[in-house]
Protein backbone atom coordinates (compact mmCIF):
# COMPACT_ATOMS: atom_id res chain seq x y z
CA UNK A 1 0.00 0.00 0.00
CA UNK A 2 1.44 3.36 -1.01
CA UNK A 3 1.62 6.05 1.66
CA UNK A 4 -0.25 9.17 0.71
CA UNK A 5 1.56 12.46 1.16
CA UNK A 6 0.55 16.05 0.51
CA UNK A 7 3.19 17.14 -1.99
CA UNK A 8 1.96 20.77 -2.22
CA UNK A 9 -0.38 22.61 0.07
CA UNK A 10 -1.92 26.06 0.35
CA UNK A 11 0.03 27.41 -2.60
CA UNK A 12 -0.71 30.60 -4.49
CA UNK A 13 1.75 31.80 -7.10
CA UNK A 14 1.74 33.96 -10.21
CA UNK A 15 4.66 34.01 -12.64
CA UNK A 16 4.60 37.15 -14.75
CA UNK A 17 5.22 37.15 -18.48
CA UNK A 18 8.90 37.66 -19.31
CA UNK A 19 10.27 37.00 -15.85
CA UNK A 20 12.63 34.31 -14.61
CA UNK A 21 11.07 32.76 -11.57
CA UNK A 22 13.03 30.21 -9.56
CA UNK A 23 11.90 27.61 -7.12
CA UNK A 24 14.27 26.86 -4.28
CA UNK A 25 14.03 24.32 -1.54
CA UNK A 26 15.42 21.08 -0.21
CA UNK A 27 14.75 17.72 -1.86
CA UNK A 28 11.13 16.74 -1.48
CA UNK A 29 9.96 20.33 -1.07
CA UNK A 30 7.58 19.98 -4.03
CA UNK A 31 9.48 21.88 -6.73
CA UNK A 32 9.31 19.15 -9.37
CA UNK A 33 5.71 18.40 -8.43
CA UNK A 34 4.83 22.01 -9.15
CA UNK A 35 6.42 21.71 -12.62
CA UNK A 36 4.53 18.46 -13.21
CA UNK A 37 1.26 20.10 -12.18
CA UNK A 38 1.85 22.91 -14.64
CA UNK A 39 2.36 20.45 -17.48
CA UNK A 40 -0.57 18.25 -16.51
CA UNK A 41 1.49 15.15 -15.65
CA UNK A 42 -0.27 15.06 -12.30
CA UNK A 43 -3.50 16.69 -11.27
CA UNK A 44 -4.19 18.68 -8.13
CA UNK A 45 -6.72 17.26 -5.69
CA UNK A 46 -8.04 20.81 -5.27
CA UNK A 47 -7.34 24.27 -6.62
CA UNK A 48 -6.68 25.60 -10.09
CA UNK A 49 -3.64 26.11 -12.31
CA UNK A 50 -3.46 27.94 -15.60
CA UNK A 51 -0.88 28.71 -18.25
CA UNK A 52 -1.79 31.80 -20.29
CA UNK A 53 -5.38 31.27 -19.18
CA UNK A 54 -5.55 27.60 -20.17
CA UNK A 55 -5.87 24.70 -17.77
CA UNK A 56 -3.13 22.02 -17.98
CA UNK A 57 -5.96 19.56 -18.70
CA UNK A 58 -6.22 21.23 -22.13
CA UNK A 59 -3.52 19.94 -24.43
CA UNK A 60 -3.25 23.39 -26.08
CA UNK A 61 -1.83 24.77 -22.82
CA UNK A 62 1.42 22.90 -23.55
CA UNK A 63 1.85 24.34 -27.04
CA UNK A 64 3.71 27.50 -25.90
CA UNK A 65 5.71 25.60 -23.28
CA UNK A 66 9.15 24.03 -23.55
CA UNK A 67 9.92 21.53 -20.81
CA UNK A 68 13.23 20.22 -19.62
CA UNK A 69 12.66 17.36 -17.20
CA UNK A 70 14.86 16.54 -14.24
CA UNK A 71 15.80 13.17 -15.71
CA UNK A 72 15.36 13.43 -19.47
CA UNK A 73 14.89 10.10 -21.16
CA UNK A 74 14.55 9.41 -24.87
CA UNK A 75 14.20 6.22 -26.90
CA UNK A 76 17.77 4.87 -26.68
CA UNK A 77 17.96 3.45 -30.18
CA UNK A 78 16.79 6.54 -32.06
CA UNK A 79 19.30 9.14 -33.19
CA UNK A 80 19.46 12.72 -31.92
CA UNK A 81 18.18 14.01 -35.26
CA UNK A 82 15.29 11.52 -35.22
CA UNK A 83 14.20 12.62 -31.76
CA UNK A 84 14.27 16.26 -32.84
CA UNK A 85 12.31 15.41 -35.99
CA UNK A 86 9.62 13.67 -33.93
CA UNK A 87 9.53 16.58 -31.51
CA UNK A 88 8.89 18.91 -34.42
CA UNK A 89 6.11 16.65 -35.69
CA UNK A 90 4.58 16.58 -32.20
CA UNK A 91 4.51 20.39 -32.34
CA UNK A 92 3.05 20.42 -35.86
CA UNK A 93 6.16 22.11 -37.24
CA UNK A 94 7.08 22.03 -40.90
CA UNK A 95 9.83 19.40 -41.50
CA UNK A 96 12.10 21.91 -43.27
CA UNK A 97 11.80 24.33 -40.33
CA UNK A 98 12.55 21.48 -37.92
CA UNK A 99 15.70 20.59 -39.86
CA UNK A 100 16.88 24.19 -39.77
CA UNK A 101 16.08 24.62 -36.07
CA UNK A 102 17.75 21.31 -35.23
CA UNK A 103 20.96 22.46 -36.89
CA UNK A 104 20.80 25.86 -35.16
CA UNK A 105 20.24 24.27 -31.77
CA UNK A 106 22.94 21.66 -32.36
CA UNK A 107 25.38 24.53 -32.99
CA UNK A 108 24.11 26.53 -30.03
CA UNK A 109 24.29 23.60 -27.63
CA UNK A 110 27.55 22.18 -28.93
CA UNK A 111 26.19 18.92 -30.25
CA UNK A 112 26.57 19.34 -33.97
CA UNK A 113 28.69 16.19 -34.32
CA UNK A 114 26.15 14.18 -32.34
CA UNK A 115 23.12 14.62 -34.62
CA UNK A 116 23.49 11.14 -36.11
CA UNK A 117 24.51 9.46 -32.87
CA UNK A 118 22.09 7.11 -31.14
CA UNK A 119 20.76 8.36 -27.82
CA UNK A 120 22.27 5.39 -25.96
CA UNK A 121 25.77 6.60 -26.86
CA UNK A 122 25.25 10.08 -25.35
CA UNK A 123 26.81 11.14 -22.07
CA UNK A 124 24.59 12.52 -19.31
CA UNK A 125 25.58 16.07 -20.20
CA UNK A 126 24.90 15.52 -23.89
CA UNK A 127 21.54 13.95 -23.08
CA UNK A 128 20.69 17.08 -21.12
CA UNK A 129 21.67 19.25 -24.08
CA UNK A 130 19.35 17.23 -26.27
CA UNK A 131 16.57 17.71 -23.72
CA UNK A 132 17.22 21.45 -23.88
CA UNK A 133 17.13 21.30 -27.68
CA UNK A 134 13.73 19.57 -27.58
CA UNK A 135 12.49 22.22 -25.16
CA UNK A 136 13.66 25.07 -27.39
CA UNK A 137 12.85 23.54 -30.78
CA UNK A 138 9.52 25.31 -31.28
CA UNK A 139 10.80 28.60 -29.82
CA UNK A 140 8.37 28.56 -26.90
CA UNK A 141 7.42 31.65 -24.93
CA UNK A 142 7.45 29.74 -21.67
CA UNK A 143 10.17 27.43 -20.41
CA UNK A 144 9.83 25.07 -17.48
CA UNK A 145 13.32 23.91 -16.56
CA UNK A 146 13.72 21.27 -13.90
CA UNK A 147 17.37 21.09 -12.80
CA UNK A 148 18.72 22.26 -16.17
CA UNK A 149 22.42 22.05 -15.38
CA UNK A 150 22.46 19.02 -13.13
CA UNK A 151 25.06 16.64 -14.54
CA UNK A 152 26.93 19.19 -16.64
CA UNK A 153 30.65 19.86 -16.29
CA UNK A 154 31.72 23.36 -15.15
CA UNK A 155 32.20 24.56 -18.73
CA UNK A 156 28.80 23.20 -19.70
CA UNK A 157 27.20 24.96 -16.75
CA UNK A 158 28.65 28.29 -17.79
CA UNK A 159 27.40 27.76 -21.35
CA UNK A 160 23.98 26.82 -20.02
CA UNK A 161 23.85 29.85 -17.76
CA UNK A 162 24.75 32.12 -20.66
CA UNK A 163 22.06 30.48 -22.75
CA UNK A 164 19.48 31.08 -20.05
CA UNK A 165 20.56 34.72 -19.78
CA UNK A 166 20.16 35.04 -23.54
CA UNK A 167 16.70 33.52 -23.37
CA UNK A 168 15.81 35.87 -20.55
CA UNK A 169 16.96 38.84 -22.59
CA UNK A 170 14.78 37.58 -25.45
CA UNK A 171 11.77 37.96 -23.19
CA UNK A 172 11.09 34.31 -22.42
CA UNK A 173 9.20 33.43 -19.29
CA UNK A 174 11.24 30.88 -17.37
CA UNK A 175 10.25 28.78 -14.40
CA UNK A 176 13.53 27.47 -13.08
CA UNK A 177 14.04 24.73 -10.57
CA UNK A 178 17.67 24.43 -9.58
CA UNK A 179 19.90 23.55 -6.67
CA UNK A 180 22.77 25.60 -8.08
CA UNK A 181 22.24 28.81 -6.16
CA UNK A 182 24.92 30.83 -7.96
CA UNK A 183 23.12 30.10 -11.23
CA UNK A 184 19.73 31.05 -9.81
CA UNK A 185 21.19 34.24 -8.34
CA UNK A 186 22.53 35.40 -11.69
CA UNK A 187 19.46 34.61 -13.73
CA UNK A 188 16.35 34.99 -11.62
CA UNK A 189 14.08 37.97 -11.12
CA UNK A 190 12.18 36.38 -8.26
CA UNK A 191 12.54 33.29 -6.13
CA UNK A 192 10.07 31.24 -4.13
CA UNK A 193 11.29 29.21 -1.20
CA UNK A 194 9.50 25.92 -0.72
CA UNK A 195 9.69 23.59 2.21
CA UNK A 196 7.57 20.50 2.81
CA UNK A 197 5.14 21.46 0.09
CA UNK A 198 4.52 24.99 1.27
CA UNK A 199 5.80 28.34 0.09
CA UNK A 200 7.82 29.92 2.86
CA UNK A 201 8.22 33.20 1.01
CA UNK A 202 8.56 34.83 -2.40
CA UNK A 203 11.19 37.53 -2.83
CA UNK A 204 12.67 39.75 -5.50
CA UNK A 205 16.25 38.79 -6.23
CA UNK A 206 17.30 42.45 -5.98
CA UNK A 207 15.95 42.61 -2.44
CA UNK A 208 17.78 39.43 -1.47
CA UNK A 209 21.26 40.18 -2.72
CA UNK A 210 21.19 43.95 -3.30
CA UNK A 211 21.44 46.32 -0.36
CA UNK A 212 21.70 43.77 2.39
CA UNK A 213 25.03 42.88 3.88
CA UNK A 214 26.18 40.11 6.15
CA UNK A 215 28.31 40.57 9.22
CA UNK A 216 31.16 38.17 9.85
CA UNK A 217 31.98 37.91 13.51
CA UNK A 218 35.39 36.34 14.19
CA UNK A 219 35.95 34.78 17.58
CA UNK A 220 38.34 32.45 19.38
CA UNK A 221 36.95 29.93 21.82
CA UNK A 222 37.29 26.29 22.79
CA UNK A 223 33.88 26.16 24.42
CA UNK A 224 32.11 23.44 22.38
CA UNK A 225 28.78 24.01 24.16
CA UNK A 226 28.83 27.67 23.17
CA UNK A 227 29.66 26.80 19.56
CA UNK A 228 26.93 24.17 19.40
CA UNK A 229 24.44 26.74 20.66
CA UNK A 230 25.56 29.32 18.08
CA UNK A 231 25.41 26.73 15.27
CA UNK A 232 21.69 26.35 15.89
CA UNK A 233 21.13 29.94 14.80
CA UNK A 234 24.04 30.90 12.53
CA UNK A 235 26.38 29.33 9.99
CA UNK A 236 29.77 28.80 11.64
CA UNK A 237 33.00 28.12 9.79
CA UNK A 238 36.46 27.33 11.16
CA UNK A 239 39.44 29.43 10.01
CA UNK A 240 42.74 28.51 11.58
CA UNK A 241 42.28 28.87 15.32
CA UNK A 242 39.28 31.20 14.88
CA UNK A 243 35.61 30.71 14.18
CA UNK A 244 33.75 32.81 11.60
CA UNK A 245 30.07 33.36 12.38
CA UNK A 246 27.80 34.80 9.71
CA UNK A 247 25.06 37.11 10.95
CA UNK A 248 22.56 38.92 8.73
CA UNK A 249 21.48 41.88 10.85
CA UNK A 250 22.96 44.31 13.30
CA UNK A 251 20.70 43.26 16.17
CA UNK A 252 21.86 39.68 15.66
CA UNK A 253 25.45 40.85 15.94
CA UNK A 254 24.66 42.62 19.19
CA UNK A 255 23.06 39.49 20.67
CA UNK A 256 25.93 37.31 19.51
CA UNK A 257 28.54 39.57 21.05
CA UNK A 258 26.67 39.43 24.36
CA UNK A 259 26.67 35.62 24.22
CA UNK A 260 30.38 35.47 23.37
CA UNK A 261 31.18 37.94 26.09
CA UNK A 262 29.18 36.01 28.66
CA UNK A 263 30.98 32.79 27.75
CA UNK A 264 34.41 34.45 27.90
CA UNK A 265 35.17 33.98 24.18
CA UNK A 266 37.71 36.30 22.50
CA UNK A 267 36.17 38.65 19.93
CA UNK A 268 38.77 39.03 17.16
CA UNK A 269 36.78 41.34 14.89
CA UNK A 270 33.66 42.13 12.88
CA UNK A 271 33.51 42.80 9.13
CA UNK A 272 30.82 43.20 6.51
CA UNK A 273 30.38 41.13 3.31
CA UNK A 274 27.90 41.04 0.45
CA UNK A 275 24.91 38.83 1.05
CA UNK A 276 24.43 35.98 -1.43
CA UNK A 277 21.45 33.84 -2.32
CA UNK A 278 23.17 31.00 -0.50
CA UNK A 279 23.10 33.04 2.72
CA UNK A 280 19.44 33.80 2.18
CA UNK A 281 18.67 30.14 1.49
CA UNK A 282 20.49 28.93 4.59
CA UNK A 283 18.81 31.52 6.78
CA UNK A 284 15.38 30.52 5.60
CA UNK A 285 15.70 26.79 5.18
CA UNK A 286 18.34 25.75 7.69
CA UNK A 287 17.89 28.37 10.39
CA UNK A 288 14.26 29.30 9.73
CA UNK A 289 14.78 33.02 10.25
CA UNK A 290 13.80 36.12 8.33
CA UNK A 291 16.59 38.24 6.89
Amino acid at each position, binding site marked *: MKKEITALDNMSLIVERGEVFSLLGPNGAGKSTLAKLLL*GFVWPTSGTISISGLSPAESASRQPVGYLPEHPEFPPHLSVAQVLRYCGAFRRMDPSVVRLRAEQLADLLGMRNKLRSPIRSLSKGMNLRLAMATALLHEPDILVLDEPSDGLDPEGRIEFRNLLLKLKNNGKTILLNSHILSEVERISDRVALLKQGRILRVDEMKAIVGANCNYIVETRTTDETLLAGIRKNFPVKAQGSSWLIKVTDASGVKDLISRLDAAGAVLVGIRQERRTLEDYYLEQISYGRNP
Partner: protein
Amino acid sequence: MGETLRNIRILSRYTFADFVSKPAFQIFLLVEGMALLGIILSPKLPLFDNIRVVPWFIFLVSFPAFTSPVVIDRFERPSVNFILSHPFTRTQVLLGTFIGVVLAMASLPVFFYAAWFAIAGIRVEVWDPAILAQGVSLVVIFISLLGYIILTGMLMPHAPAITLFWSLYVMFGATLLHARSFNFFEVEPKGDPDLLLEILFYVTPAILDISNFFKNVVRTGYGDPLATLTSLGGATLCMILSCRLVGKRDLG
Protein backbone atom coordinates in the same frame (compact mmCIF):
# COMPACT_ATOMS: atom_id res chain seq x y z
CA MET B 1 -11.56 14.80 -34.91
CA GLY B 2 -8.99 15.33 -37.67
CA GLU B 3 -6.59 16.79 -35.13
CA THR B 4 -7.06 13.80 -32.81
CA LEU B 5 -6.45 11.31 -35.61
CA ARG B 6 -3.38 13.22 -36.71
CA ASN B 7 -1.97 13.17 -33.18
CA ILE B 8 -2.67 9.45 -32.80
CA ARG B 9 -1.01 8.80 -36.16
CA ILE B 10 2.17 10.68 -35.28
CA LEU B 11 2.35 9.07 -31.84
CA SER B 12 1.90 5.58 -33.26
CA ARG B 13 4.56 6.29 -35.90
CA TYR B 14 6.93 7.46 -33.17
CA THR B 15 6.23 4.37 -31.07
CA PHE B 16 6.60 2.12 -34.10
CA ALA B 17 9.98 3.68 -34.95
CA ASP B 18 11.10 3.36 -31.34
CA PHE B 19 9.96 -0.24 -31.16
CA VAL B 20 11.44 -1.53 -34.39
CA SER B 21 14.78 0.11 -33.56
CA LYS B 22 15.10 -2.03 -30.43
CA PRO B 23 17.77 -4.74 -30.70
CA ALA B 24 15.30 -7.37 -29.40
CA PHE B 25 13.00 -6.68 -32.34
CA GLN B 26 15.85 -6.80 -34.82
CA ILE B 27 17.15 -10.06 -33.39
CA PHE B 28 13.68 -11.51 -33.79
CA LEU B 29 13.53 -10.32 -37.36
CA LEU B 30 16.90 -11.94 -38.00
CA VAL B 31 15.75 -15.23 -36.46
CA GLU B 32 12.63 -15.04 -38.58
CA GLY B 33 14.70 -14.49 -41.70
CA MET B 34 16.95 -17.42 -40.81
CA ALA B 35 13.91 -19.64 -40.23
CA LEU B 36 12.54 -18.66 -43.61
CA LEU B 37 15.91 -19.31 -45.22
CA GLY B 38 15.86 -22.74 -43.58
CA ILE B 39 12.45 -23.41 -45.09
CA ILE B 40 13.72 -22.38 -48.51
CA LEU B 41 16.91 -24.46 -48.33
CA SER B 42 15.45 -27.55 -46.68
CA PRO B 43 14.93 -30.34 -49.28
CA LYS B 44 11.86 -31.77 -47.53
CA LEU B 45 10.17 -28.55 -46.47
CA PRO B 46 10.21 -29.67 -42.81
CA LEU B 47 7.75 -27.14 -41.48
CA PHE B 48 4.99 -28.79 -43.46
CA ASP B 49 5.32 -31.86 -41.25
CA ASN B 50 4.41 -29.74 -38.26
CA ILE B 51 2.13 -27.36 -40.03
CA ARG B 52 -0.25 -27.07 -37.09
CA VAL B 53 2.29 -26.45 -34.38
CA VAL B 54 5.25 -24.48 -35.61
CA PRO B 55 3.48 -21.33 -36.81
CA TRP B 56 1.27 -21.30 -33.73
CA PHE B 57 4.27 -21.64 -31.53
CA ILE B 58 6.15 -18.88 -33.23
CA PHE B 59 3.23 -16.49 -33.49
CA LEU B 60 1.45 -17.03 -30.23
CA VAL B 61 4.23 -17.73 -27.78
CA SER B 62 7.50 -16.23 -28.89
CA PHE B 63 6.48 -12.70 -29.79
CA PRO B 64 4.60 -11.67 -26.67
CA ALA B 65 7.50 -13.06 -24.67
CA PHE B 66 9.12 -9.67 -24.74
CA THR B 67 6.13 -7.47 -25.50
CA SER B 68 4.50 -7.13 -22.15
CA PRO B 69 7.62 -6.07 -20.18
CA VAL B 70 8.60 -3.62 -22.92
CA VAL B 71 5.24 -1.87 -22.85
CA ILE B 72 5.07 -1.78 -19.09
CA ASP B 73 8.62 -0.43 -18.86
CA ARG B 74 7.74 2.21 -21.38
CA PHE B 75 5.01 3.61 -19.19
CA GLU B 76 6.94 3.38 -15.98
CA ARG B 77 9.91 5.26 -17.31
CA PRO B 78 10.17 9.05 -17.33
CA SER B 79 10.11 8.89 -21.14
CA VAL B 80 6.34 9.13 -21.00
CA ASN B 81 6.72 12.65 -19.56
CA PHE B 82 8.65 13.60 -22.67
CA ILE B 83 5.60 12.72 -24.78
CA LEU B 84 3.12 14.19 -22.32
CA SER B 85 4.94 17.53 -22.32
CA HIS B 86 3.74 18.01 -25.90
CA PRO B 87 0.23 19.17 -26.78
CA PHE B 88 -1.42 15.75 -26.63
CA THR B 89 -4.22 14.47 -24.45
CA ARG B 90 -3.64 11.36 -22.37
CA THR B 91 -6.13 9.42 -24.46
CA GLN B 92 -4.21 10.31 -27.62
CA VAL B 93 -0.93 9.21 -26.02
CA LEU B 94 -2.49 5.97 -24.87
CA LEU B 95 -4.09 5.12 -28.20
CA GLY B 96 -1.12 6.25 -30.29
CA THR B 97 1.33 4.19 -28.26
CA PHE B 98 -0.99 1.20 -28.23
CA ILE B 99 -1.46 1.23 -32.00
CA GLY B 100 2.28 1.75 -32.57
CA VAL B 101 3.30 -1.22 -30.44
CA VAL B 102 0.58 -3.49 -31.84
CA LEU B 103 1.53 -2.62 -35.42
CA ALA B 104 5.22 -3.19 -34.73
CA MET B 105 4.57 -6.53 -33.09
CA ALA B 106 2.01 -7.60 -35.66
CA SER B 107 4.44 -6.88 -38.49
CA LEU B 108 6.51 -9.90 -37.40
CA PRO B 109 3.88 -12.63 -37.78
CA VAL B 110 2.38 -10.95 -40.84
CA PHE B 111 5.78 -10.96 -42.52
CA PHE B 112 6.52 -14.50 -41.42
CA TYR B 113 3.18 -15.98 -42.43
CA ALA B 114 3.13 -14.19 -45.78
CA ALA B 115 6.65 -15.38 -46.56
CA TRP B 116 5.90 -18.91 -45.37
CA PHE B 117 2.74 -19.05 -47.48
CA ALA B 118 4.62 -17.82 -50.54
CA ILE B 119 7.51 -20.27 -50.07
CA ALA B 120 5.13 -23.17 -49.49
CA GLY B 121 3.09 -22.18 -52.52
CA ILE B 122 6.12 -21.94 -54.78
CA ARG B 123 7.70 -25.19 -53.57
CA VAL B 124 4.72 -27.52 -53.48
CA GLU B 125 2.43 -25.48 -55.70
CA VAL B 126 -0.31 -25.36 -53.14
CA TRP B 127 -2.03 -22.02 -53.29
CA ASP B 128 -4.87 -22.85 -50.98
CA PRO B 129 -6.89 -19.81 -49.85
CA ALA B 130 -7.91 -21.81 -46.78
CA ILE B 131 -4.29 -21.82 -45.58
CA LEU B 132 -4.12 -18.10 -46.20
CA ALA B 133 -7.36 -17.63 -44.27
CA GLN B 134 -5.82 -19.68 -41.48
CA GLY B 135 -2.89 -17.27 -41.44
CA VAL B 136 -5.12 -14.21 -41.42
CA SER B 137 -7.17 -15.59 -38.54
CA LEU B 138 -3.94 -16.42 -36.75
CA VAL B 139 -2.71 -12.85 -37.07
CA VAL B 140 -6.08 -11.44 -35.99
CA ILE B 141 -6.06 -13.69 -32.92
CA PHE B 142 -2.47 -12.72 -32.23
CA ILE B 143 -3.21 -8.98 -32.47
CA SER B 144 -6.29 -9.33 -30.29
CA LEU B 145 -4.41 -11.19 -27.58
CA LEU B 146 -1.42 -8.92 -27.82
CA GLY B 147 -3.58 -5.79 -27.86
CA TYR B 148 -5.35 -6.92 -24.76
CA ILE B 149 -2.08 -7.55 -22.95
CA ILE B 150 -0.58 -4.25 -24.07
CA LEU B 151 -3.64 -2.17 -23.27
CA THR B 152 -3.85 -3.64 -19.81
CA GLY B 153 -0.17 -2.97 -19.30
CA MET B 154 -0.56 0.63 -20.40
CA LEU B 155 -3.60 1.32 -18.29
CA MET B 156 -2.23 -0.31 -15.19
CA PRO B 157 1.57 -0.28 -15.26
CA HIS B 158 1.98 -2.31 -12.09
CA ALA B 159 -1.18 -4.28 -12.61
CA PRO B 160 -1.15 -7.90 -11.69
CA ALA B 161 -3.84 -8.16 -14.35
CA ILE B 162 -1.00 -8.45 -16.86
CA THR B 163 -0.07 -11.78 -15.42
CA LEU B 164 -3.68 -12.80 -15.20
CA PHE B 165 -4.14 -12.11 -18.88
CA TRP B 166 -0.97 -14.03 -19.58
CA SER B 167 -2.70 -17.02 -18.09
CA LEU B 168 -5.89 -16.35 -20.03
CA TYR B 169 -3.82 -15.99 -23.15
CA VAL B 170 -2.20 -19.36 -22.60
CA MET B 171 -5.56 -20.99 -21.99
CA PHE B 172 -7.04 -19.38 -25.06
CA GLY B 173 -4.01 -20.31 -27.13
CA ALA B 174 -4.22 -23.86 -25.83
CA THR B 175 -7.88 -24.11 -26.75
CA LEU B 176 -7.13 -22.85 -30.21
CA LEU B 177 -4.23 -25.19 -30.65
CA HIS B 178 -6.12 -28.24 -29.56
CA ALA B 179 -9.35 -27.41 -31.30
CA ARG B 180 -7.46 -28.09 -34.50
CA SER B 181 -9.01 -25.07 -36.04
CA PHE B 182 -7.66 -26.19 -39.36
CA ASN B 183 -10.85 -28.17 -39.71
CA PHE B 184 -12.77 -24.93 -39.72
CA PHE B 185 -10.92 -23.95 -42.85
CA GLU B 186 -11.02 -27.51 -44.16
CA VAL B 187 -7.25 -27.89 -44.17
CA GLU B 188 -6.16 -31.50 -43.82
CA PRO B 189 -3.69 -31.96 -40.95
CA LYS B 190 -0.34 -33.37 -42.06
CA GLY B 191 1.67 -35.12 -39.36
CA ASP B 192 1.52 -34.86 -35.57
CA PRO B 193 2.44 -31.76 -33.63
CA ASP B 194 5.87 -31.83 -32.12
CA LEU B 195 5.53 -32.71 -28.45
CA LEU B 196 8.58 -30.70 -27.42
CA LEU B 197 7.23 -27.57 -29.06
CA GLU B 198 3.88 -28.14 -27.44
CA ILE B 199 5.45 -28.38 -23.99
CA LEU B 200 7.48 -25.27 -24.69
CA PHE B 201 4.23 -23.54 -25.55
CA TYR B 202 3.20 -23.82 -21.93
CA VAL B 203 6.54 -23.68 -20.20
CA THR B 204 7.59 -20.37 -21.79
CA PRO B 205 4.81 -18.29 -20.23
CA ALA B 206 5.37 -20.12 -16.95
CA ILE B 207 9.00 -19.03 -16.97
CA LEU B 208 7.94 -15.50 -17.88
CA ASP B 209 5.45 -15.45 -15.02
CA ILE B 210 8.13 -16.54 -12.60
CA SER B 211 10.55 -13.92 -13.94
CA ASN B 212 7.78 -11.35 -13.62
CA PHE B 213 7.41 -12.35 -9.99
CA PHE B 214 11.12 -11.80 -9.34
CA LYS B 215 10.99 -8.53 -11.24
CA ASN B 216 8.20 -7.35 -8.94
CA VAL B 217 10.18 -8.27 -5.88
CA VAL B 218 13.30 -6.54 -7.13
CA ARG B 219 11.44 -3.41 -8.18
CA THR B 220 9.36 -2.81 -5.13
CA GLY B 221 11.84 -4.17 -2.63
CA TYR B 222 9.21 -6.21 -0.87
CA GLY B 223 6.99 -7.32 -3.75
CA ASP B 224 3.46 -6.27 -4.49
CA PRO B 225 1.42 -9.03 -2.79
CA LEU B 226 -1.29 -9.10 -5.46
CA ALA B 227 1.24 -9.13 -8.31
CA THR B 228 3.20 -11.86 -6.58
CA LEU B 229 0.09 -13.95 -6.09
CA THR B 230 -1.08 -13.65 -9.68
CA SER B 231 2.42 -14.16 -11.09
CA LEU B 232 2.84 -17.37 -9.18
CA GLY B 233 -0.77 -18.30 -9.89
CA GLY B 234 -0.22 -17.77 -13.59
CA ALA B 235 2.97 -19.80 -13.54
CA THR B 236 1.27 -22.64 -11.65
CA LEU B 237 -1.67 -22.60 -14.06
CA CYS B 238 0.67 -22.86 -17.04
CA MET B 239 2.59 -25.71 -15.49
CA ILE B 240 -0.62 -27.61 -14.61
CA LEU B 241 -1.90 -27.17 -18.15
CA SER B 242 1.41 -28.37 -19.52
CA CYS B 243 1.45 -31.46 -17.28
CA ARG B 244 -2.17 -32.30 -18.02
CA LEU B 245 -1.63 -32.12 -21.75
CA VAL B 246 1.50 -34.23 -21.62
CA GLY B 247 -0.39 -36.72 -19.46
CA LYS B 248 -3.27 -36.81 -21.90
CA ARG B 249 -0.93 -37.45 -24.79
CA ASP B 250 0.66 -40.34 -23.00
CA LEU B 251 -2.76 -41.84 -22.27
CA GLY B 252 -3.90 -41.27 -25.80
